[in-house]
């Protein structure tokens, strides 16, 4: 029997529906999550199955729903709070960073905050500077939070189920350009642990560490590189916190070259952290400095002629890989 395929969006929806059936404590709150099913239609059908008591349309109050989620999580529920665009995390930062992330430690381990903040990242949707950012580095910086950034429908479903069962606050980033991406998702129950990277393609000549939206870009570049005889290994950390350092280091020890590709801003970003991890763990194996490719350090512009210049592409990754392999 051929393996079942689902879109990224349908995989998210299936994970939520399964967890809501399994655990009556799970509920969704957010803007336009019920009948509208979110602007990306990721939740279509959920309110019909679970009712408005568990799929709750909220006012446009990101800080409010983020805080209400913390209180509900502390007192026996498992909220999934929907922050429509990752850019809107800025409105909720006190509640996520000073409240959700701190409660467990600050209370000496007595209160827990099992909450999931679902949100999006990614540019090239022609949405300009306030709807296109990838701000996962911000929350990855904060002890007490865990951060998942899936790159395939399979990973999205397995990681979201783990996030919902997690005892900690999790920020879960979905690339909004990826909702239509199709991939194999088995019918059988599965979850994916946090902190376990996935090797998306085996190779020996260089390592492409890529996250979320950039995994497909890296895989495309790897295909082109194969055409000129360069075998690239593609590794997806899948969660930035916790980060599976060992798998990254082991790969680079084998290949001696690495490019880290992520759609967040390059400066002080995820690429910086991962490059430092590789430099520290595989320094004596490196033939060349670790390269970083992130979003250009500018507010995301509207015009397609400009926006497309701000994110790494198959072509720019291909060129960078050729360069560090001495094939320019």
């Amino acid at each position, binding site marked *: 029997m051929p393996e079942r395929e689902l879109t990224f969006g349908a995989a998210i929806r299936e994970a939520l529906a399964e967890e809501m059936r399994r655990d009556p404590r799970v509920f969704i709150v957010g803007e336009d999550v019920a009948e509208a099913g979110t602007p990306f239609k990721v939740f279509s059908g959920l309110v019909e199955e679970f009712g408005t008591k568990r799929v709750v349309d909220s*006012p446009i109050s990101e800080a409010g729903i983020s805080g*209400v989620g913390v*209180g509900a999580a*502390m007192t026996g*529920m498992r909220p999934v709070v929907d922050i429509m665009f990752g850019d809107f995390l800025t409105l909720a930062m006190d*509640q996520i960073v000073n409240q959700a992330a701190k409660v467990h430690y*600050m*209370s000496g*381990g007595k209160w827990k905050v099992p909450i999931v903040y679902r949100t999006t990242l990614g540019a090239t949707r022609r949405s300009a500077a306030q709807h296109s950012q990838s701000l996962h580095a911000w929350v990855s910086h904060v002890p007490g939070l865990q951060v998942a950034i899936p790159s395939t429908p399979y990973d999205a479903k397995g990681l979201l189920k783990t996030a919902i069962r997690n005892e900690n606050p999790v920020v879960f980033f979905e690339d909004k350009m990826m909702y239509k991406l199709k991939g194999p998702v088995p019918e059988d129950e599965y979850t994916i642990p946090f902190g376990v990277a996935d090797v998306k393609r085996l190779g020996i000549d260089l390592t492409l560490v890529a996250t979320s939206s950039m995994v497909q870009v890296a895989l495309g570049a790897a295909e082109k590189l194969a055409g000129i005889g360069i075998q690239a290994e593609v590794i997806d950390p899948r969660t930035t916190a916790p980060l599976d350092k060992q798998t990254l280091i082991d790969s680079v020890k084998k290949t001696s070259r690495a490019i880290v590709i992520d759609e967040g801003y390059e400066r002080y970003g995820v690429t910086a952290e991962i490059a430092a991890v590789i430099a520290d763990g595989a320094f004596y194996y490196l033939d060349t400095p670790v390269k970083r490719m992130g979003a250009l350090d500018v507010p995301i512009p509207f015009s397609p002629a400009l926006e497309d210049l701000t994110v790494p592409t198959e072509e720019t990754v291909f060129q960078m890989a050729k360069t560090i392999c001495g094939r320019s």
Partner: protein
Amino acid sequence: MNENSELLTESMNATNVEHWLHCYEQMVKIRKFDEKVNELYMKALMPGLAHLYIGQEAVAVGVCEALRKDDYITSTHRGHGHCLAKGASINRMFAELLGKEAGYCRGKGGSMHIADPESGNLGANAIVGGSAGIATGAAFSARLRDSDQVAVCFFGEGALGQGLLYEVMNMASLWKLPVIYVCENNLYNEYTHVSETMAGTVIARAEAMGIQAISLDGQDVQLVYSTMQELVEHARRGEGPAFLECKTYRYYGHHVGDINREYYRSKEEEKEWKEKRDPLKLLAEKLIAQNLTDQSVLDRIETDVQSEIESGVQFALEAAYPDPSEVTEDVYA
């Protein structure tokens, strides 16, 4: 609504005198606890700072006496009174303030973060207004779980400047959540008089969202308690949130180190409140005037509480600091 609130005041009589003596004891406990905290600070025995609750005791006690043990509260940076009134132990409070492992948060929270699941204390919060979402979420959770618990959100009038409060009050009203917002208006946002920071009136803010709102004398524990009883029962029955402004006063500075205060308030003003509107004196005078007790009973309460305080401090001073290995524990559950 002041006049209406007077009508709610529960009478004092021989059958409930024990309750009022208990309220008196709780207020004395808070006052003596924080007097000792001030002493520890002055003697450099306590790390960091603390924000004293002295002067506001009738609010914490009047509110918490109207709650069940399994009801929730969220507290503030000026939170010792709330925690004690909701049932925290003096020993573990002092231990936390001194950064000891026996403290409520194993020494990781300190004065501004006392939390205790056993007494329904979701935690004191050092972000002004920061707990409004948590309290509202606890009320949301109670409704989802079909529980009749209620949640109380304590905050000072300074929190009226924070947007979060308005976001969650709107949700609480829309969804008829069992949460009561208790605004302790002690007139000062840190070192700035409320008249410089707030336009309009306090309760109009809640009324604009269709929330029942009452403003009352927060120095009268009888009035606070009776009014809260009504509001709590209302919320428990599923009839929605309420907002209570308690007009009160903090006798000390914004924090223990805020000694010279003349640049923002006069000594005459402080004297006026301490002499004429002290919550402990007001309750004591009523009880004695109605022949429900005599001074010797009240003196005995004070002596007993003082010895509890002394032994609590001793316990905390002798308690062990957390082991260094604790520093990385409980980041994640």
